[in-house]
């Protein structure tokens, strides 16, 4: 129990970081109605680009921006494969994901794992978030506002604000229409292909940004760090919807729910790891089962448990 409480701030921080990726998944899965598997690759792309640039002395924000750009590019590739080449969205995502495996390794100089040198104090201080900051703040050697929960929390809120604004604009509304009803969108003069490409870019940009934050946090990038990212993203989206769906109706709050969904997911996983002697290799299986169950429940609910219909009363045309 004690180890769980001790690990809690770390789990929440990590959950918040993955939450940014989950918001990216939310954009494709919920808004565009596309299951985009690119994210398993682009998550690592973000991490790899960040670590390499940061390691070569580039500034923090430049490295983060480059990671974002790399993600946008990955989304562009999937988007073009889907719209210009007519490949089904799922397959287009898988193709990009597969290709990115090699690209990511190439970015990392053909190594599967590249670390950020955090023993160098000056280098560590340059980071936005780090696992070490959690302990530092607890020990009092670092000011409280450097705590990863606070930093990533503010970061997430900023992203949610920007997205809230964007999806309220004419362009953002046309993206939502593209996902909600492509026929209607085209009849209103919206190029749905452009909408899909733009949405995929935006989504993967966020995913890569999240990857960059995670590689900072754990102080290394790993070729397989994005494995199963889509499942974690979906888990966060679904958990957020199940837990907060009834109270969070506003669009910004829905994105917040996704972010909090990721936090809940990580906290639960952390609890499972700390409180039982489970082999961590089973985590992916557990994740897959959790997501499968949560996706099944609403379907079965609609199929087998019909809400009782009130009979009588006036009918409404």
């Amino acid at each position, binding site marked *: 129990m004690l180890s769980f409480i001790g690990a809690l701030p770390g789990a929440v921080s990590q959950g918040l970081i993955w939450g940014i990726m989950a918001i990216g998944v939310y954009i494709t899965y919920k808004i565009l109605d596309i299951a985009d598997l690119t994210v398993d690759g682009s998550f690592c792309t973000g991490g790899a680009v960040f670590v390499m640039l940061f390691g070569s002395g580039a500034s923090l924000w430049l490295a983060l921006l480059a990671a974002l750009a790399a993600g946008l590019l990955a989304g562009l590739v999937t988007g073009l494969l889907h719209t210009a080449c007519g490949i089904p969205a799922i397959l287009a995502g898988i193709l990009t994901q597969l290709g990115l495996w090699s690209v990511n390794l190439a970015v990392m100089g053909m190594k599967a794992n590249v670390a950020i040198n955090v023993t160098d104090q000056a280098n560590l201080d340059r980071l936005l978030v780090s696992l070490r900051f959690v302990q530092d703040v607890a020990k009092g050697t670092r000011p409280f506002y450097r705590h990863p929960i606070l930093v990533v929390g503010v970061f997430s809120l900023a992203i949610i604000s920007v997205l809230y604004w964007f999806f309220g*604009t004419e*362009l*953002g509304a046309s993206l*939502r229409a593209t996902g909600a009803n492509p026929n209607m969108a*085209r009849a209103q*003069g919206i190029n749905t292909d452009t909408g899909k490409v733009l949405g995929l870019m935006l989504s993967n940009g966020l995913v890569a940004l999240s990857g960059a934050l995670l590689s900072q946090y754990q102080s290394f990038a790993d070729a397989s760090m994005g494995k199963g990212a889509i499942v974690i993203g979906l888990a966060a989206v679904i958990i957020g919807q199940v837990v907060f769906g009834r109270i969070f109706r506003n669009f910004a709050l829905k994105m917040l729910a996704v972010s909090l969904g990721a936090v809940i997911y990580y906290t639960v996983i952390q609890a499972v790891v700390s409180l039982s002697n489970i082999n961590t290799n089973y985590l992916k299986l557990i994740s897959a089962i959790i997501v499968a169950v949560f996706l099944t429940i609403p379907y079965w609910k609609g199929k087998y448990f019909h809400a009782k219909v009130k009979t009588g009363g006036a009918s409404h045309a």
Partner: protein
Amino acid sequence: MLEVKDIWKVFNAGTVNEKQALRGVSLTLKDGDFCTVIGGNGAGKSTLLNAVAGTWAVDGGSISIGGVDVTHLPDYKRAPYIGRVFQDPMLGTAPTMQILENLALAARRGQRRGLRWGVTKAEKEQYQEMLKNLDLGLEDRLTSKVGLLSGGQRQALTLLMASLKKPKLLLLDEHTAALDPKTAAKVLELSDRIVAESHLTTMMVTHNMKDAIQHGNRLIMMYDGKIVIDVSGEEKKKLTVPQLLELFNKVSGSDEADDKLLLS
């Protein structure tokens, strides 16, 4: 306003399911014309409408709207000229978006969509007024999701959206076929009103001969991918359903009355 010249369309070319859907259709609509289109199943009515809307490219011929050649433009690029209402009430609106947002999307048909706000305050009041005129009780539900509306309400909303930014051509594709008779009559009446108020050039596909005769100033009947009957003006006003059936039989060369047409 609309000029269709000798358009052809084959579906599933080279397969056993090959279907010559349009065989050299030509049609010219003058500004303000309201043309009803009838015909049996597979006659090519909806195909003609989709050809004009740009759902796919035609195999031959040309289409121009208001003097602009749109033959090679995809549907979303023709949208600035065309307002559409589909047969399926689900197709014309975005169900997960608000009534307000749907209207705002339609108001920007054919415009560049940038980073300005998607809905302005002035618009909100304007739409409220317009919805009041529809008399469907929607004016107080601006922020409701369209998915909550009934089929009739959705078709009425789609009509409003199609005419919000005055189109050069309004296409109604059996837009009342999925509604109950009472609602269908109401939506038809609304269509008439909107067409008259904005002086819209209109094409309306229908299965119902009576509706086809009662509405509009011109009537065309299609058979086997061709226009076989074309009546307008006084001649159309005097037309009756039995006359129309007789005309149809004469042209199509079949003696048996088409039950499908008679019954619908």
